[in-house]
């Protein structure tokens, strides 16, 4: 087996097949059945609710058809305005998130930046926090009149920062979506063979620029994938816009959909039409990404050799500069909002006057006595754990089928595992609600409807994570095993699975976090007895219990980080054992 470095993997059509053994052929048949089963499950999970979105959307208010209203939605000036708002915020926000996220990932994974291990944990904190709470924290910090930063610092300098302004919203969006890029980019960077970097250094380029020039392009597929997903996520983001943009009557597509659905009676037709537009945009973007990736050479970087990634030494000056930048970012994006929440949680009535009046632990005491908190935390934990494991199994199978077989159904699988990202949570929830309140599968009123919703919504997350690690793995590794007589299943278990395990662990982590704070579909699908964290927090926000909300949010953030750290620890141990 050669030490494969970079080389074009070639299109699927050109992939070579090894000699076929009997077990190989048998495996092929089992594979075909499995593939059909997989496609069947995905179709039901994804298409069935989406079909219901259309059915509900095309039902008029009086039971008749609503095709006219459906298409008329597209000529509404408010829709055009919302589309423009969505794009002008989300494109710069995504770009910012990608730049900061990938540079940060590079600094943490490949350099000797100070406290890299802590940075690695801290930087994902905003991702763990519900954007609703995060935006609220930023209002506390940077509302034009009473924001703590304005009062304490900027007003004295004669400046007022306004978090409700366009740059303010872009900033908050970038802060909340940057960790997503970071997780993908750092995962990919950890898998890259450092020999490539060494080669560049040997050829005379200095260590620093070699690292950037070699590593960034090598992980470009992962970053590009993350970028697409990030953009799609920003397009369907709701909380940030509801808190920061709606007060100026600036709507984006998601808040417009929400408005349609919360009018009286609910305008599912307008919501459905707007959702179709979102869907179309995302499909277009994903298609463009695929084309782009096909025309590039794809880089296979994980060969059959074991290695331990080396970190480059930045030198004293570089180390200080890079460390200062990283820690400065963490202080701004993570520590400040947490402090803001802490301050709010310590006042029984928060008035933005930081006096000692009313300072105390009332909110924390109330939180500890609130029975719903524990119930919601338990529900959220088990739901997120179960649903992310289920999604992981599904997406690993899907990603493997897509990348290792010249077979029909590839496009369909790709489509099915990508589409949910394009459907805003509030809209998907309508489809899921309809799909599982009607026979034959009635899950409504039970916790299982949330389970199914979580799995459906997060298929793209798991898919992107597993796919990214598969893309970097050369198929020679499997072929060698197959030539040596291993069946397909055995190849998968002994070769593929251990190698993509880090990607799977990353996928699991991301999905768990995302589910643990999932709001937009939970709020429509939960019923009494299965309340989850996010719904409880929305409830607190709605009731103006901001002190308790801030306290709970801090507790959940710390708990999630601890859980994720534990998972990472465990998976690393498993990884070394099987490697």
């Amino acid at each position, binding site marked *: 087996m050669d030490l494969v470095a970079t080389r074009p993997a070639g299109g699927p059509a050109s992939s070579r097949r090894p000699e076929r053994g009997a077990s190989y052929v048998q495996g092929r048949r089992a594979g075909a059945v499995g593939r059909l089963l997989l496609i069947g499950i995905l179709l039901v999970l994804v298409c*069935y609710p989406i*079909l219901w979105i259309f059915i509900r959307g095309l039902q008029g208010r009086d039971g008749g058809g609503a095709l006219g209203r459906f298409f008329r939605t597209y000529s509404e000036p408010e829709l055009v305005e919302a589309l423009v708002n969505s794009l002008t915020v989300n494109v710069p926000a995504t770009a910012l998130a990608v730049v900061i996220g990938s540079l940060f990932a590079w600094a943490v994974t490949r350099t000797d930046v100070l406290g890299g291990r802590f940075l690695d944990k801290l930087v994902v904190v905003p991702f763990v926090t519900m954007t609703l709470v995060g935006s609220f924290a930023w209002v506390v910090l940077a509302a034009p009149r009473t924001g703590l930063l304005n009062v304490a610092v900027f007003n004295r300098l004669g400046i007022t920062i306004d978090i409700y302004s366009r740059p303010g919203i872009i900033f908050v969006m970038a802060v909340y979506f940057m960790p997503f890029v970071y997780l993908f980019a750092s995962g990919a960077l950890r898998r890259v063979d450092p020999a490539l970097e060494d080669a560049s250094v040997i050829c005379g380029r200095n260590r620093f620029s070699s690292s950037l020039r070699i590593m960034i392009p090598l992980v470009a597929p992962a970053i590009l994938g993350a970028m697409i997903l990030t953009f799609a996520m920003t397009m369907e983001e709701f909380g940030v816009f509801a808190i920061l943009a709606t007060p100026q009557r600036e709507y984006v597509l998601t808040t417009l959909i929400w408005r349609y659905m919360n009018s009286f*009676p609910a305008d599912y037709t307008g919501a459905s039409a707007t959702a179709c537009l979102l869907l179309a945009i995302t499909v277009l973007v994903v298609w463009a990404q695929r084309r782009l990736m096909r025309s590039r050479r794809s880089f296979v970087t994980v060969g059959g050799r074991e290695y331990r990634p080396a970190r480059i030494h930045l030198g004293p000056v570089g180390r200080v500069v890079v460390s200062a930048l990283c820690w400065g970012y963490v202080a701004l994006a993570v520590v400040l909002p947490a402090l803001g929440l802490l301050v709010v949680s310590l006042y029984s009535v928060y008035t*933005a006057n930081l006096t000692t009046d009313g300072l105390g632990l009332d909110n924390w005491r109330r939180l500890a006595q609130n029975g719903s908190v524990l119930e919601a935390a338990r529900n959220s934990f088990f739901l997120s754990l179960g649903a992310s494991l289920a999604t992981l199994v599904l997406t690993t199978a899907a990603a493997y089928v897509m990348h290792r077989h010249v077979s029909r159904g590839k496009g369909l699988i790709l489509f099915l595992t990508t589409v949910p990202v394009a459907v805003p949570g509030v809209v998907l929830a309508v489809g899921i609600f309809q799909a599982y309140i009607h026979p034959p599968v009635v899950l409504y009123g039970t916790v299982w409807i949330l389970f199914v919703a979580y799995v459906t919504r997060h298929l793209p997350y798991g898919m992107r994570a597993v796919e990214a690690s598969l893309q970097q793995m050369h198929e020679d590794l499997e072929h060698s095993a197959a030539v040596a007589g291993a069946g397909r299943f055995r190849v998968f278990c002994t070769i593929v699975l251990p190698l993509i395990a880090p990607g799977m662990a990353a996928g699991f982590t991301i999905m768990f976090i995302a589910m643990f704070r999932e709001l937009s579909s939970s709020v429509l699908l939960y019923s009494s007895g299965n309340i989850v964290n996010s719904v409880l927090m929305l409830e607190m926000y709605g*009731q103006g219990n901001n002190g308790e909300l801030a306290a709970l949010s801090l507790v959940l953030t710390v708990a999630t980080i601890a859980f994720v750290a534990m998972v990472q620890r465990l998976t690393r141990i498993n990884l070394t054992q099987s490697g």
Partner: protein
Amino acid sequence: MSAHRHRRPTMRVRSACTAVLGILVLGIAACGGEETTGPPIAADSDLPAAAKQEGVVSWYTSLPEQYSKVIADKFTEKYGIPVDLFVTGSMGLQNKLAEEANAGRLGADVFHSSYPPSFVLLKEEGLLATYDSPEYEAYPPDYVDPDRTYGTFRATGVVIAYNPEALGGTPPPTRWQDLADPRYRGMIAAADPQYGGTQFIADHMLVQKYGEDLLRGIAAQQPQLVDSQSAEANLIITGERAIGIDMNDYEAWSSKYRRGAPIEYVYPEDHVTVVPGYLAVLEDAPHPNAARLLHNYLLSAEAQKIVQDEVGAYSTRRDAEPIEGRPAFSSLPVTQPDWKQLGEDTTAIQDQLNDLMRQPQ
């Protein structure tokens, strides 16, 4: 739901596709033919026993959970029947209920929201049970449906709230028309009429009473629009904005008296919108006896006292005591709209308010 609409998929995509469509067609066909026959309904005196047999009761309510739970727990304590609470905003409840009814899978026994047109609409569709609660005798006729499908659980007055410190010496408004005064420019927060029943009704009543110009004038003050009165209260308490219009009286009252927050409020001299929060038993309630028992309890003097003392909302019972710091309910200059008309015109009114509140750029 349009039942029995069999469609044969013509595309031969894949067997799985056909299966999915098949499931769908079955689903559509199946949900048409379901008839529910509920258990018999006991006489009022036998309700506690019959309700106990049913085991549980579910209450869909727009009263915030912290309050709903207090009242529900008292009910459970008294009758030994647990209450499944489902709490969300009035519009969300209305839509959820409509979808559940549409699918023939109603989860609610008792329904309460502060958007009266919901009740008019549900009643028209035959979804509300006709039940002459013994408690109705204690209420003025204006607050009980003549056909006995709903009563009034609480009433919310719409006030103008303000933060004296944030006003910085400017006198607070006392009438709705004051709000268009340029001296309040940039000071006003408002609840967006798109998002909630109370502010929607209040804004509509302003247009009815003063014409469109008043709302245009308020919009020209560059108000900050938020989705709920709680969010609005927080803006005022922190002083980010000085004046909150369309504020719920109970929200302002509990902020001031229960939490000691720096917030004051006035019932405007010229006109007060009062939004009755109705309460009804559903026709197809899964637990019809428990539903009636809970309905009666919620309207009883005992529960209504909690509504006044804990929530700070008005009870419309004749024997309700006055609330500290609030005018007597009967003294408010109330104008009630035609709820049926309002329900029918909701979309048009929403469009109108949306246009009016749009800031001139």
